C-alpha cells in the first residue's frame, strides 16, 4: 500500500506538536512547584527582623505602602548591580508610596553589611536576614530574589535573579497602582 507523503508529513507534525506540548506542560508544572508564596494574591509572610541600626522592623509595619522586598548579600555581584537602581527608584517612587526593603542574607558582620550599604548609597531600610524568613519565602536558594507586595500586603509578583531595570520598574508601577482595600 502506498502512503501519500503529504499525509505522512501532516501526521509527523501533529505528533511532534503533541510531544512538544506535553514536554513543555510538564516543565511548566515543575517550574511552578517552587515552594513558598505563590505570585498572585497570597499574603506576604510577615516577619520581624533587626535593621542595621538595631531597630526591630516588621514587614506588616509597611502595610498601606507598596513594598519591594529584596533579598541580597554582599557577595552577590548581580545584587550589586540592582542596588543603584533601587536607590534611584526609591527616590523616584517613594513619594508615591514605594518602600524598598532590603534583607541581607549574609554571614558577614553587621558592620560589613552596613559599610557595603553605605558605599552603595542605600536610602531604604536594610534588615538582617534569617534562614526562617528565607524559608517563608521559598528558601531563597540564590540571590537576588525580589518580591513585589501591594498596599494590602498581597504578593503580586516575584522575580528570581537579576532582571532589567525596566522590568523592575514595571513591577513597581503595578504595586504602586494598587489601592488599599478597606477591611
Amino acid at each position, binding site marked *: 500500500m502506498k502512503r501519500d507523503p503529504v499525509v505522512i508529513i501532516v501526521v*509527523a507534525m501533529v505528533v*511532534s506538536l503533541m510531544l*512538544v506540548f506535553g514536554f513543555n506542560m510538564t516543565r511548566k508544572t515543575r517550574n511552578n512547584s517552587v515552594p513558598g508564596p505563590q505570585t498572585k494574591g497570597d499574603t506576604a509572610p510577615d516577619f520581624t527582623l533587626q535593621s542595621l541600626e538595631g531597630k526591630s522592623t516588621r514587614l506588616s509595619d509597611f502595610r498601606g505602602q507598596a513594598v519591594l522586598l529584596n533579598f541580597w548579600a554582599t*557577595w*552577590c555581584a548581580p545584587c550589586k548591580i540592582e542596588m543603584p537602581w533601587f536607590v534611584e527608584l526609591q527616590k523616584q517612587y517613594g513619594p508615591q508610596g514605594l518602600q524598598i526593603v532590603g534583607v541581607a542574607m549574609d*554571614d558577614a558582620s553587621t558592620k560589613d553589611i552596613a559599610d557595603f550599604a553605605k558605599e552603595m548609597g542605600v536610602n531604604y531600610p536594610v534588615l538582617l536576614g534569617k534562614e526562617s524568613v528565607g524559608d517563608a519565602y521559598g528558601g531563597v536558594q*540564590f*540571590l537576588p530574589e525580589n518580591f513585589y507586595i501591594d498596599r494590602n500586603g498581597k504578593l503580586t509578583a516575584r522575580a528570581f535573579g537579576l532582571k532589567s531595570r525596566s522590568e523592575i520598574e514595571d513591577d513597581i508601577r503595578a504595586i504602586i497602582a494598587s489601592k488599599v482595600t478597606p477591611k
Partner: protein
Amino acid sequence: MLSTLIKTILGISLLSVLLPAQEPPGKKIPSVTLSPPPLASVTRGKPNTVELQFHVSSGFHVNSNKPSAEYLIPTVLKLDAPTDIVLGRITYPEGEQMSFAFAPDEKLSVYSGEFDLAVMVRPLASVLPGNYEFHGQLKYQACDNAACYPPKQLPVRFVVKVVKAPPAPKKNPAQSPHIHN
C-alpha cells in the same frame, strides 16, 4: 515509509525540546566536584607537587582565588596534612577575566569548566613509606548569568604514596695509585 515518519517525529521533537531559551536561575543547582585524583607518588624528604582537578558544573562559574572585588568570596582550598608531611604552598590558576550579562562593563576573575590546583607536599625524611590521606575543603561561591548561590564547601580527600628517595648514584671510589715494587 514508516521509519521516515518516526525519524521526522523524533527529529522535530528533539529540536523543539533542545531549542528553548536558557533555564531561569534556580532550576539547576551549581556544583563543583573533584575529579578522582590518581594516586600520587611523593618522595620523602623532598618537595612534591600534587595536582587536583576540579570541575564547575556547566552554566556556572566560581570566583577565582583572587576575585576582582573585595566583596566577592574567593575560591580557597584548606587542607589538613597527615603528621610528618609538611603542607606547602597551594598554587591557584589565574582566573579567566569574564564579563556577564549582569555586569557587561565589569570583568570578573572566575573559574569555569575545569581548573587545577597544585598542592606542594614534603614528607619528612623520617616518614615510613606508605599511603597517607589528606582531608580538606574547597570553599567556593558560584553564580550563573543572573543569580548567585550561597557559599559552599566541597569536602576534598586525596591519598599520596610516600616512597623512599632513590639511592644516590654511586661514585667510583678514588683509586689509589698502584705501587709496583
